[in-house]
């Protein structure tokens, strides 16, 4: 008879612990091996701009495969089914292609060492400052959320002390990023990528066999749910989309998620762009997002399907699987832990848990290294202590690693106040990133856009995002963090997600209009000569030097795009 594993009974054996310890040893060992290459600030903060495309490409995806993905996406899989793939396909692939083909030449080709620095070169000091500070705060928050989620999980799953797990995971990330900087984070992200994929495969395979394969799962999802939730149609990504759907209808998904949020994240977020900028050549930098796009398209099968399997098991009245209730539904963030417990015996269980830890660490290290670079170059070197020697900034970069991790620990405790991690992150992205893409779009593709236009566009956009948030609410909102803080609710959305998509659309549109209007009202401060390499019309077209046509970014972009369309049709 199958027994119900519950929170108290659950114990790891020596074999699980040895897998974890071996993993930690490798992670730290990679940092140690790279220590000798850290001779100047460029090595530490930009990985010496020397890495091969497949490494930066996998790191590009892995840095994003943190807490937000594995726990949050499995939770969404259980809540919304295959519709969650919109975060991976429409919500990522077009933006990654755009970054590779149109934007990378400006990032990599200009002298900029970071995204804020590009803004300084293209616009002015205040635009850079705004971006640098908001980005620094955002990455620290994201890093803290990763840590909080990991510690909470270890506490729930293994009964480990919350504070101890938090400090140990922070300490390991600190050591390897301190030793090897960005290179260490990137190389470890590649290792973590393979570990995450291989560690979660057994769960997906065993789970699917248990529910009778894809068809069995779909049949069970069509059955009535014990809590009365409607899970039928979970096997379709587009078919059930309507304004009443939690994802918010076609316009919300296409423009809010697929355009504004997605392009705002993938094309302007230094966390991911930094990986591409660490590549060894222009061609490799442009291929980075495209190589990353291949695994990106298939990650949903690893993280969303466990959530759907969980719902199928609950619907079929399987007594061996249990998901704690929370309010009138389930505690969805526990889908992955409960599935690991239900299906994996000691051995692969250790591997699955190690994969989970790896995902948190890659997310956190990605944030820490991006924070490092922005803080050292765009805050410290620009505003606090300019004009020092390179070795001075190398030292500052290293110390910033420690500072960043310490502040992350603080924010981890702040994050403990919010229950749905992903919705909260989306909210921050909507406030800051949505208007940011408007500034980039106008700045990169028109030379008329001015620094004042971009800066005030960003501010108005961010402000309008806050305002929309103040006048709208998702259904059943209990706190003002969810919106409606003005006291007047003009619009109620079916979910926070739909609300966020719409906030993004409005913030972007306001920022775009404001940027155009203010640019036309203000004088250009940069000459055509100064904007060479920064603006589309003033830059010679990038000629790719790949030896074979099938190595060229253009060709890869078509392949990626076509596969994404085919997948969308299959899972219509």
């Amino acid at each position, binding site marked *: 008879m199958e027994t119900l594993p519950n929170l108290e009974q659950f114990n790891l054996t020596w074999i699980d612990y040895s897998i974890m310890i071996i993993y930690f040893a490798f992670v730290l060992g990679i940092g140690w091996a790279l220590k000798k290459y850290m001779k100047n600030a460029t090595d530490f903060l930009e990985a010496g701009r*020397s890495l091969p495309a497949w490494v930066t490409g996998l790191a590009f995806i892995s840095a994003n495969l943190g807490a937000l993905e594995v726990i949050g996406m499995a939770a969404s899989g259980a809540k919304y089914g295959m519709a969650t793939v919109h975060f991976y396909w429409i919500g990522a692939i077009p933006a990654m292609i755009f970054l590779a083909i149109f934007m990378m030449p400006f990032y990599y080709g200009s002298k900029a060492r970071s995204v804020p620095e590009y803004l300084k070169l293209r616009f002015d000091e205040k635009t850079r400052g705004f971006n640098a500070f908001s980005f620094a705060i955002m990455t620290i928050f994201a890093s803290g959320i990763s840590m909080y989620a990991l510690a909470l999980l270890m506490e729930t799953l293994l009964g480990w002390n919350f504070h101890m797990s938090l400090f140990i995971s922070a300490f390991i990330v600190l050591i390897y990023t301190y030793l090897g900087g960005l290179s260490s984070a990137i190389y470890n992200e590649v290792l973590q990528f393979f570990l995450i994929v*291989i560690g979660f495969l*057994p769960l997906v395979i065993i789970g699917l066999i248990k529910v009778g394969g894809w068809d069995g799962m779909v049949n069970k999802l069509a059955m009535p749910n014990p809590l009365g939730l409607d899970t039928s149609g979970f096997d379709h990504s587009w078919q059930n989309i309507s304004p009443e759907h939690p994802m918010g209808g076609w316009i919300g998904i296409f423009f809010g998620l697929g355009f504004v949020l997605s392009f705002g994240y993938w094309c302007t977020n230094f966390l991911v762009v930094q990986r591409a900028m660490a590549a060894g050549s222009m061609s490799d930098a442009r291929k980075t997002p495209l190589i990353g796009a291949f695994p990106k398209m298939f990650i949903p099968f690893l993280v969303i399907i466990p959530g759907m399997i969980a719902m199928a098991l609950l619907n079929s009245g399987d007594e061996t699987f249990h998901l704690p209730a929370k309010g009138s539904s389930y505690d969805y963030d526990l889908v992955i832990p409960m599935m690991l417990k239900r299906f*994996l015996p000691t*051995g692969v269980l250790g591997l699955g848990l190690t994969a989970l830890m790896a995902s948190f660490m890659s997310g956190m290290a990605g944030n820490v290294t991006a924070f490092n670079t922005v803080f050292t170059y765009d805050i410290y070197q620009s505003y606090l202590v300019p004009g020092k020697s390179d070795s001075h900034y190398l030292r500052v970069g290293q110390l910033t690693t420690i500072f960043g991790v310490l502040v992350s620990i603080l924010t981890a405790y702040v994050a403990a106040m919010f229950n749905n991690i992903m919705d909260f992150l989306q909210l921050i992205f909507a406030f800051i990133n949505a208007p940011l893409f408007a500034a980039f779009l106008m700045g990169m593709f028109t030379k008329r856009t001015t620094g004042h236009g971009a800066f005030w566009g960003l501010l108005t956009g961010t402000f309008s995002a806050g305002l929309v948030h103040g006048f709208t609410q998702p259904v059943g909102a209990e706190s003002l963090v969810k919106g409606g803080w003005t006291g007047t609710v003009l619009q109620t959305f079916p979910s926070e997600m739909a609300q966020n998509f719409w906030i993004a659309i409005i913030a972007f549109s306001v920022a775009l209009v404001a940027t155009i209007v203010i640019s036309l009202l203000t004088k250009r401060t940069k000459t055509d000569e100064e904007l060479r390499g920064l603006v589309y019309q003033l830059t010679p077209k990038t000629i790719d030097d790949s030896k074979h046509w099938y190595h060229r970014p253009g060709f890869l972009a078509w392949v990626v795009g076509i596969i994404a369309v085919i997948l969308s049709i299959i899972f219509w």
Partner: protein
Amino acid sequence: MGLDIKIPIGLMFVIFGAILTIFGLVTMGDAMYEISIGKNINLYSGIGMLAFGTFMLIISDLKFGKRIDESLGIDEEELTEEAKKELLNK
């Protein structure tokens, strides 16, 4: 950066694979596999990881293929695209 990440990846998965394969063989038919619906998931995963780890080591710079570069005193990882082209033209 002179680190071929395929080597640590390969080594780590060979070690994981070996541990799980041996553990799977020792625990063959054990009652603990009831939760993984009777499948000896440790053994299968172990074999899979051994294969993946070995593959990574084979395609790494550790043993095969890179001998010629080494005899010329060239570290492939350190070469930029341009330097590679120059070498090819020679």
